[in-house]
């Protein structure tokens, strides 16, 4: 029995817009059919038409391909497959964001997008990947993926990839040497020390942290007193009294000194540094076991395919457009033909720039919204 949603997918897959991964015949494909939990793995295709016809015949709820490319992609075990290399994949998902639980779907997506923008800054600035080797996709679900196809990283093993993850998440950062005490003056038993911080234009994390410190204190200086104090007391170990001392000691001259790497008589920074580091880092946590990026044989959603739980397309996000990209407009594929359904739970959402605020019960809504509601199990289509 084909369901309404499956029928929509069937129509899409009759003329899909797939982004073929490079070396697509060397990839493993895997799919989950409608109504099933189990993933069928170890599929391979030789030509574009093969993949096209696979989609047309099977109409999967979810389809994936391997970040790795293999000698024999359809062999059943890793050893027989013969690993040749793998793209570097970053999977940013709302599930990995602390505090995302309380957010609405669009808010969640916006929060993940901010992380992606931070990630791109690392990938383009620190790692120097060119635009041709970077591709960002909306996952169709609750996040974004970034694929790096630079040949120099494709053969890295998982230990090496883990180092990249650690860089981006700031794990193992030697915070001690970032801020160092230096004796500037000593006479008898009088010693004067000064705290040195990195310069904003230094490479690597040193410069990053320096810029973040300066940015933070500049924003405090620019903010109304009330707000600045409140910002400060958010830090662990900084009470109202200390906050006031910090705020009152803050002058444009002092920030100018920071730009020159001097942090004199301003010891509080040590307390705040860990927080400022966290802000500069990307949240890739939540998968302590095998971070996706370190996995050299991971399956990822096929760009251009549909996500079975939303009906949204795994959509390519041009790097220059990421700020404007709105998944609930740009990744919508179904049209607005009316669909009658029964909603189980009240839902408020805006899609294709139309706001919906629906109570439980019967409604007629555009097909694209129906797909999202049905996919998430919030509604059933009336027959």
């Amino acid at each position, binding site marked *: 029995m084909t369901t309404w949603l499956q029928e929509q997918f069937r129509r899409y897959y009759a003329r899909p817009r797939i982004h073929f991964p490079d070396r697509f015949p060397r990839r493993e494909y895997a799919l989950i059919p409608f109504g099933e939990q189990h993933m069928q793995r170890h599929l391979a295709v030789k030509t574009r038409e093969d993949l096209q016809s696979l989609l047309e015949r099977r109409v999967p709820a979810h389809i994936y391909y391997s970040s790795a490319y293999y000698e024999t992609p359809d062999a059943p075990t890793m050893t027989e497959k013969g690993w040749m290399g793998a793209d570097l994949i970053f999977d940013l998902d709302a599930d990995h964001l602390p505090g995302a639980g309380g957010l609405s779907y669009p808010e969640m997506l916006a929060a993940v997008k901010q992380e992606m923008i931070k990630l791109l800054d690392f990938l383009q600035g620190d790692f120097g990947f060119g635009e041709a080797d970077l591709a960002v996709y909306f996952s169709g679900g609750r996040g974004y993926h970034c694929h790096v196809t630079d040949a120099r990283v494709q053969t890295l093993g998982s230990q090496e990839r883990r*180092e990249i993850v*650690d860089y981006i998440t700031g794990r193992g950062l030697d915070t001690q040497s970032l801020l160092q005490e230096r004796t500037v003056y000593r006479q008898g038993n009088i010693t004067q020390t000064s705290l040195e911080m990195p310069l904003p234009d230094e490479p690597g994390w*040193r410069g990053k942290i320096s810029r973040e410190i300066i940015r933070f204190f500049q924003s405090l200086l620019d903010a109304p007193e009330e707000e600045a104090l409140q910002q400060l007391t958010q830090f662990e170990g900084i009470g109202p009294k200390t906050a006031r001392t910090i705020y009152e000691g803050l002058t444009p001259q002092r920030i100018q000194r920071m730009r020159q790497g001097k942090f004199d008589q301003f010891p509080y920074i040590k307390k705040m540094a860990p927080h400022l580091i966290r802000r500069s880092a990307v949240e890739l946590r939540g998968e302590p076991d095998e971070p996706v990026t370190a996995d050299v044989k991971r399956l990822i959603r096929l760009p251009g395919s549909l996500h079975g739980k939303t009906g949204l397309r795994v959509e390519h996000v041009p790097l220059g457009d990421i700020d404007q990209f709105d998944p609930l407009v740009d990744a919508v594929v179904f049209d607005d033909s009316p669909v009658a359904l029964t909603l189980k739970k009240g839902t408020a959402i805006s899609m294709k720039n139309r706001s919906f605020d629906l109570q439980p019960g019967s409604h007629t809504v555009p097909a694209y919204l129906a797909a999202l509601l049905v996919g998430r199990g919030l509604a059933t289509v009336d027959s």
Partner: protein
Amino acid sequence: MDIYVLARYPFLSEAKEVVRRENVRTEEILHDPIYERARDIGRQRVTDALEEGVVGGYPVASETDALMNIFSYPIARMIVASVGHPYFRGRYALAEAKRAYEFLQGESRDFLLQVARELEVAVDDDLRLHFADYLRHAPTRSQRWKLVNMPLSQGWLSLDHRELARVLQNAIQHRLFEELRDMRPPSEISNVFREEVTAIRNTLQQREMREKAEMGEASVAKLPPCMRMLLAAIQTGANVPHVGRFTLVSFLNAIGMDTEEILGLFAASPDFDRERTRYQIEHITGKVSGTDYTPPSCASIKTWGLCPTDKMDAICRRVNHPLSYYRIKGRRRK
């Protein structure tokens, strides 16, 4: 390149070219009295690698000396390949690489660049290294060398002379290990160097036995608290971060468990995936890469938050390394 210089780096292609240009057959190298010196130094290289963990210090007073040094290297390699022991291949590659590192520190910048190019390590004229090659070769297990602490910008990072030499040491080690792994030594070798090959095999075996005896039967009862905790976590299917797995597997490997035994321990886990787990284990124990990682020290384990400080016992307080804990515990039981 000067032949004296080449004698320090007999693994460089230019040194190999010298051997080729002399146009001698393997037969001659193995039997001709002219190459007696080369054979002696070759033997010495191998023994030094085994006993000292580093080769070198053979006199290079004349051009002939230098040439003999260069010739000794292919001989040594053939002996190592005939021994056919993966651990020993790794040890020999490391011993040669260490020696090279000692010299490299004193060489010119241009020379370092040249060696880097030969090893296909991407370095630009300002000694900046591409991060991918840095990750392949730098000892990133130690915090100082972690990528996150390096001045990375636009994909490249600057190293000083010594740091680059250190990275090259590892690149040399990896290159030599791969070459040894793929080498099929002529059978004649095992005849000429029968004594040496047998002696080395015996030593290796004795060492393994001694280590086993010292460690006793690998036993879970002697595991320190941190390892017990990690093992229990894995067996109950709890989420264990990669460093945790790494710590436990490298430890179990060091106390003499092989892949099968470790797999046996992990099999209790509810989401046990034999193939995947085997793959992970073999990566850590060096079956795949040739580097077998030594298990981390207490200090590292503590930094990663994997030392259950509330469960530390009297032995814990005496040791800096979980392996020492294991040894002490073994002694007590006897």
